């Protein structure tokens, strides 16, 4: 049953179809797609290259602007970013930019193109804590300019939520492997199974390296007090991690209750269905009109036959896994008994022993640097949106600032 989970859900373009799609592009003047890609991947330029038969040039544009181009192509919420203001919507519907980007990076991979050039070592050393999209991008951008970069990662494999969060059917780990391999080949060293603050002190890193970048993400799922210590309850990110780790070879019970309505919840319910769970009930705090999950993920979940109930909050949990919900507006109640309860009510950061303070889930300093130190930060714990492509943007930004800092100190 796990094949479905392992197979990429979305079908890629063939050469003919990608050209048809590129031909729909209006080749705009001040292309809104390019100005609304957080990472500066420049879709208007790579689509134009493709349209004018220069696929290799298109691959260069993607890869130079976005070192995780093949990943972003698959996981970006494009309807919020590049495709949001697409001029083509004035005629029918936006250009499928993510799918075009995927075609281009698949082409790059098939031809084994080696695009990024690495400069001679410049003698400077940088440590990065965390190997999610922000840490990986920062490392690659610094390595490109000759910095010696070491990433410290607490897990057994690199990638952060790319590896352990986003399900296989949306982002195969094989793609994550290839993107990371490219970065390792640029000279970046990744030290696994090493938690900074526990296995190694951040003070040591600050001494040994010219700069330290904290990119630890939102590594923990949130708990609701009423579910604490309940053996039937698991946090969404922990469950998703198990699935991805075991390539979908996990046992799913007959009847699962999911609480939460964001993208993480959608990943959980869809994964459950793809793994063969017959009864998946998702109870969501928001009403449909204010739903947080992307339309595409919601549609996928509905297509899979997930029961989604909107507008209810959990108020109590009884023995045997019976959860009581109340509607937020109307006088209505709901009771659900399930074999397993998965909580997808958000993630939070953990910066224990890293010598930094948080404020509303972000490090309490302006910009990307802790004032008066050689410590920088990026990704979900930095300022901005909590998505992969923002991680890439933030990784580029922090690399730029680190270069300025280290160049300026001389």
């Amino acid at each position, binding site marked *: 049953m796990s094949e479905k989970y392992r197979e990429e859900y979305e079908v890629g373009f063939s050469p003919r179809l990608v050209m048809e799609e590129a031909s729909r592009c209006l080749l705009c003047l001040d292309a809104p797609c390019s100005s609304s890609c957080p990472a500066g991947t420049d879709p208007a330029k790579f689509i134009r*290259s493709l349209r*004018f038969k220069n696929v290799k040039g298109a691959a260069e544009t993607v890869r130079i602007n976005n070192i995780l181009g093949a990943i972003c192509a698959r996981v970006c919420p494009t309807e919020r970013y590049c495709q949001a203001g697409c001029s083509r919507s004035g005629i029918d519907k936006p250009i499928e930019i993510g799918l075009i980007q995927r075609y281009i990076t698949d082409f790059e991979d098939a031809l084994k193109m080696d695009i990024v050039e690495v400069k001679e070592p410049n003698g400077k050393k940088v440590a990065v804590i965390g190997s999610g999209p922000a840490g990986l991008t920062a490392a690659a951008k610094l390595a490109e300019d000759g910095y010696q970069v070491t990433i410290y990662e607490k897990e057994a494999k690199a990638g952060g939520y790319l590896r352990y969060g986003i399900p296989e059917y949306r982002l195969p780990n094989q793609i994550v492997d290839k993107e990371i391999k490219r970065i390792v080949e640029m000279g970046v060293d990744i030290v696994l199974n090493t938690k900074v603050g526990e296995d190694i002190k951040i003070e040591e890193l600050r001494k040994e390296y010219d700069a330290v970048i904290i990119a630890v993400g939102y590594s923990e799922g949130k708990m609701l007090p009423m579910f604490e210590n309940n053996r039937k309850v698991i946090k969404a990110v922990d469950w998703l991690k198990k699935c991805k780790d075991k390539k979908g070879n996990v046992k799913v019970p007959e009847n699962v209750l999911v609480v939460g309505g964001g993208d993480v919840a959608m990943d959980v319910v869809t994964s459950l269905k793809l793994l063969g769970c017959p009864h998946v009930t998702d109870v969501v705090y928001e009403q449909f009109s204010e739903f947080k999950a992307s339309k595409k993920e919601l549609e996928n979940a509905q297509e899979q036959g997930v029961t989604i109930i909107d507008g209810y909050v959990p108020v109590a949990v009884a023995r045997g896994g019976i959860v009581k919900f109340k509607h937020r507006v109307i006088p209505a109640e709901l009771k659900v008994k399930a074999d397993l309860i998965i909580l997808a009510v958000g993630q939070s950061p953990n910066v224990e022993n890293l010598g930094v303070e948080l404020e509303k889930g972000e490090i309490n300093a302006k910009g990307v640097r802790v004032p008066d130190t050689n410590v920088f930060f990026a990704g979900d714990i930095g300022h901005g949106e909590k998505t992969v492509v923002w991680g890439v943007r933030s990784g580029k930004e922090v690399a730029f600032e680190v270069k300025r800092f280290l160049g300026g100190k001389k």
Partner: protein
Amino acid sequence: MVKKDLSITFMGVKFPNPFCLSSSPVGNCYDMCAKAYREGWGGVVFKTIGPKHYLIDEVSPRFDALTKEAEPFVGFKNMEQIAEHSLEENLADLRRLKKEFPNQVLIASIMGSNEEDWEVLAKLVTEAGADMIELNFSCPQMTSHAMGSDVGSNPELCKKYCAAVRRSTKLPFMAKMTPNITDMCVPAIASIEGGADGIAAINTIKSIINVDLDKKVGLPIINGKSSISGYSGKAVKPVALRFIQQMKTHPQLKDVEISGIGGIETWEDAAEFILLGCKNLQVTTGIMQYGYRIVEDMKNGLMHYMDEQGVDKLEDLVGLANKNIIPAEELDRDYKVYPEINNDKCVGCGRCVISCYDGAHQAMEWDKENRRPTCNKDKCVGCLLCGLVCPVGAIKPGERVLKPGRKAKNLSKMVLQESVEKL
């Protein structure tokens, strides 16, 4: 990132890359040419400058496009003559361009109505700082028969005017040919005899591309009427390539350098002109439709092509295809190649069957039950029309067979195209 040296010497002048604006509104004034240089064009052929006494008076509107299905611009028609700006303005622009962009090439295009005009114009643009000159013998919509394509189809005039220009300048110059002629080699040879250093081809093709069915007049409509005028863009590329190949293989012209023009939009188009012997390339319609920015992908794509071909100098690609274009009577007619159908790719539209029946040899048969084609080899002649019309590229050249009674040969060694698919 691919990096290759695209520089190439044409008529003794080194170009940073072979891509130039061709003479037309895309190079009408200082601002436009400066922008083009900044966006990476190797050279500019400034809009054709005419004699002071010839007054330009243009029509409005002046363009139309030939379309096909969803394709907005297969070909392009224009009714424009030569530069609208005054001679003084144009010369001032040339001077300023050369001063500010010394490393990119500036080519002045000129057109006179008699020997004196040509001499005077050649002298003026030489003094203004042009690196080379192009003689416009080829605009098909001039309002004077002493100018434009009427000159280009008259070898004596070509030779006479080239000689006049030769007398008044030491700069290298090329004669720009009209395709509105059966054999371009004749005026090209005459131009070289008159003193031209190279040839530019092609200018636009005389055309009527659309007729308004209500008003019963060609397009564009100029107060109820229209005229025959120049056709350009992608659709004219095959015509340009043919003339260029003929010149490059003519004994008297094979060593003459050629600037190729006509329908260039992509690096692939550019590479085709180069493989047929061009050392320089010019573009108008592609720029009018998409802007100067198309040069980025033409340059980058050409570099990747050089990389794939393992060459470091663009020069090494020039003319490589000419030896493989031979007279029809010399082609190998001993074999035929049958279509090979990939049933996994086939989507069951039956277009191959329709085209084979109505346009070929009734060999493609339809399995009604499975909705898939099969080729009846007894009838098939191996024309491969079926492969061209297949919308998914499921049909490609397959089994090769010797025609009956021909001398045996190693059929597997024959060089055939891998696919006939158009995408």
